[in-house]
């Protein structure tokens, strides 16, 4: 007769005492077995990324990103903002429709333009029931607010979107093509010639992200989705109609949004798992082993305090660090951070492969 066994199934253990469970998995008894996480991955192994673009027809650009069990949909929708609707609009005299000057002054002014007129509007919706803790009918949680703000600031700091492709111009010299009209306004012709093109409106990009399924590491997935959707975005060719006082778009002609200037920044997040939980570690001192877990899932995120997110861009042959965010602990120092760049580089090439 079998005695009632005291062993539980793996998911039960994970739920009852998650910390010891993950610790045992990471430090196996026999040296022959490699340390692995509860989800079967090695500590430095990220989940593979899948990207599908252009699946939504009402958005101008869209992407669905799936990384393990985290699924996020991003839709980019463009709307027109006439300059008359901007309260504190200051025309820049140096601006020309075809200007290709890349001086630092212009670059800084371009960025300021995006930011002061608020032309990029990213929002992340978590309250879709994507995980049991995110139920709808409540205002955005602090996590959703943080994520939106992080995406917003990264979009601006990386200069992902070129403001040039968001401007809608009116060129008076090309307007008077009608022969009858030009007869009547013969006297004014010279004035028209002299009149330079005017900036009449901007495109505003509403970037909305919807989490379908949530299993940890929301920022990496969200940022990948934003980048994939922006690269997929095509804005209709717009011209200014002075008679109607509004921008009119072509039904057939579409221009892809220029996102080449920002390169391809890719976010890479890791969490630090410590042997002793925070409370005991402080008093006892001594050695406290730690593991760096790349691309943490929901269970791991709940057990780790310290996380680091690095945004790198390895295009053009060299690695550029676009942003580093580290919070909640003291384990990751300079050395580890330097090593982490290598991990992020590897992640970058994985994501770039998926984007193709």
């Amino acid at each position, binding site marked *: 007769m079998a005695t009632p066994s005291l062993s539980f199934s793996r998911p039960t253990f994970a739920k009852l005492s998650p910390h010891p469970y993950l610790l045992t998995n990471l430090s196996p008894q026999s040296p022959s077995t490699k340390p692995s996480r509860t989800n079967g991955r090695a500590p430095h192994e990220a989940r593979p990324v899948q990207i599908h673009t252009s699946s939504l*027809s009402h958005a101008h650009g869209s992407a669905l990103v799936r990384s393990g069990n985290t699924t996020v949909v991003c839709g980019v929708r463009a709307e027109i903002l006439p300059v008359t609707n*901007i309260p504190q609009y200051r025309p820049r005299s140096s601006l020309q429709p075809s200007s290709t000057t890349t001086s630092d002054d212009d670059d800084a002014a371009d960025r300021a333009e995006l930011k002061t007129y608020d032309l990029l509007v990213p929002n992340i919706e978590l309250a*879709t029931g994507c995980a049991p803790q995110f139920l709808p009918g409540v205002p*955005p949680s602090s996590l959703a607010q943080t994520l939106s703000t992080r995406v917003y600031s990264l979009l601006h700091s990386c200069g992902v979107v070129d403001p040039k492709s968001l401007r809608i111009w009116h060129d008076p010299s090309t307007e008077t093509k009608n022969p009858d009209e030009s007869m009547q306004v013969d006297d004014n012709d010279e004035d028209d010639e002299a009149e330079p093109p005017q900036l009449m409106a901007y495109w505003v990009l509403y970037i*909305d992200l919807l989490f379908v399924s949530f*299993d940890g590491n929301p920022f990496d997935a969200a940022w990948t989705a934003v980048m994939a959707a922006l690269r997929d975005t095509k804005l209709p060719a717009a011209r200014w109609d002075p008679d109607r006082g509004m921008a009119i778009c072509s039904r057939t002609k579409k221009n892809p949004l220029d996102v080449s200037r920002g390169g391809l920044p890719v976010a890479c997040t890791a969490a630090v798992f410590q042997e002793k939980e925070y409370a005991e570690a402080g008093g006892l001192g001594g050695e406290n082993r730690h593991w760096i877990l790349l691309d943490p899932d929901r269970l791991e995120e709940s057990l780790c305090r310290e996380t680091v997110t690095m945004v790198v861009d390895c295009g053009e042959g060299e690695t550029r660090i676009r942003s580093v965010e580290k919070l909640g602990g003291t384990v990751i120092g300079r050395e580890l951070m330097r090593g982490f760049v290598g991990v992020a580089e590897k992640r970058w090439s994985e994501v770039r492969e998926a984007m193709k």
Partner: protein
Amino acid sequence: MTDRRRVNGPVGSTHPPVFENEPEQELGASKCLRTRAPTVTRKMYLKTGVTPSASGSAYLEIETSGKGSVSGLKLSCTVHGPRSLPRSTPFSPHIILSTHVKYAPFATKQRRGYLRDPTERDLGSHLETALRGAIIADRWPKSGVDIIISIVEGDQDREASKSQGGEAWDMMNALSGCITVASAALTDAGIDCVDTVAGGVAALVRDEGDDTTPRIVIDPIPSEHEQILAACCVAYLPDRDEITNLWFKGDLPASDMELYSQLVEKGIQASRNSNEVIVSSLRETVG
């Protein structure tokens, strides 16, 4: 008053792009007419278990019709529960359903806000009625279940003009999809139901041309017809032969009772079709 918990964008108002009428577009704007037989529904794709952390979940996609600009319906549904109600709620002898339907901001022609608007609330309450009849509510006293549907993409023609008033009819199609996907997600969550409920839409339409006798079609797409006179959306339990929710809209002569019952009859037929999809999808999961 702006919501400071979201990124709000520019202070000045923006408007969606206005498109010009290109000549060849106008000439070649022969409307995409319905090519399906009146009793055939569009193809559906249903998958359960898309959100592993929820108790149950399902994803439904309805095929896009021939014209490229018409999007198909894409719905994602999650079910959380049954779980105990908070202490403060009064005793309830049966399970408390709460349904939540939300369009994604990029789901329709006009950008949707993040706050629920009346049409979404309306869809939610219809959905609740449809499901309440199917769930064996007495098995879970003092508990609640949340059913959340995100409409990732609505069933709407991008090029249809506003004057056609397609919005109201689109809601019917959306509701029928919501009922079907919620039923699959409830089953995935293992919540006891008397039967799998499924939604179906039938409509009385008048087509373009000289032949003006209205006819009844199932699973209508508003832009394919000249005019929709009336439509009904039913939630139907096939094994029990019961209707849990009936939503009727439109303009019919009150004298002709026959027409009413025919419309409901066809709605049931549409619902049977979607029920087959649910059953075969669940069989796949089990088998």
